[in-house]
């Protein structure tokens, strides 16, 4: 049961990330959906991949994005 909820949260997170106008919120939502995918990997019997994905998808990629946003602009003006 939990896996369906995680899937839906992951997909919703990715959709919400793309409609945000505040890019920092989009970054956090990307992290959430990356974390959901990591959790799914655990359910799909791949714990080693889940570890890597949890680090990369939920921590490293959002941090990269946050640095890029910090150096550029935070609000998506032209949407």
């Amino acid at each position: 049961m939990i896996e369906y909820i995680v899937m839906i949260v992951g997909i919703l997170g990715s959709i919400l990330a793309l409609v945000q106008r505040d890019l920092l919120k989009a970054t956090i939502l990307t992290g959430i959906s990356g974390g959901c995918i990591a959790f799914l990997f655990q359910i799909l019997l791949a714990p080693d991949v889940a570890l890597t994905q949890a680090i990369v998808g939920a921590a490293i990629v959002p941090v990269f994005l946050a640095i890029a946003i910090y150096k550029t602009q935070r609000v998506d003006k032209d949407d």
Partner: protein
Amino acid sequence: MIDTQLAALLSSGSFIIIGLYAAIFIDNIIKKIIGLSFIEEGANMFLITLAYRPDGIVPIFLPGMTPEWFASKSAYPLPHALVLTSIVIGASTLAIMLAIAMVLYNKHGSLSASVILGDKK
């Protein structure tokens, strides 16, 4: 209730579709990069789903298991090894794209793809 494997396949498909949508319709370049990273994640998830086996076990051979029982139960470990590499490649490509996006922002003062990556640019 559909089974886990099918649901996981469908959700990996929807990640890819969301990414393709972002590739065409979203103008902000950082959001475009976020969207494209979803395609990568969808592809990884697809490979992991292929390796899944309903009611299976994690492919780690523990003492006390017989090889026959292990072979009939375990998930397929080859895609796991492939996805590990693929995740790292995806993250590094993303980092390069973000670095170039930062340079482009300093040059043009905008993050809009149609402004900085349009014709004659």
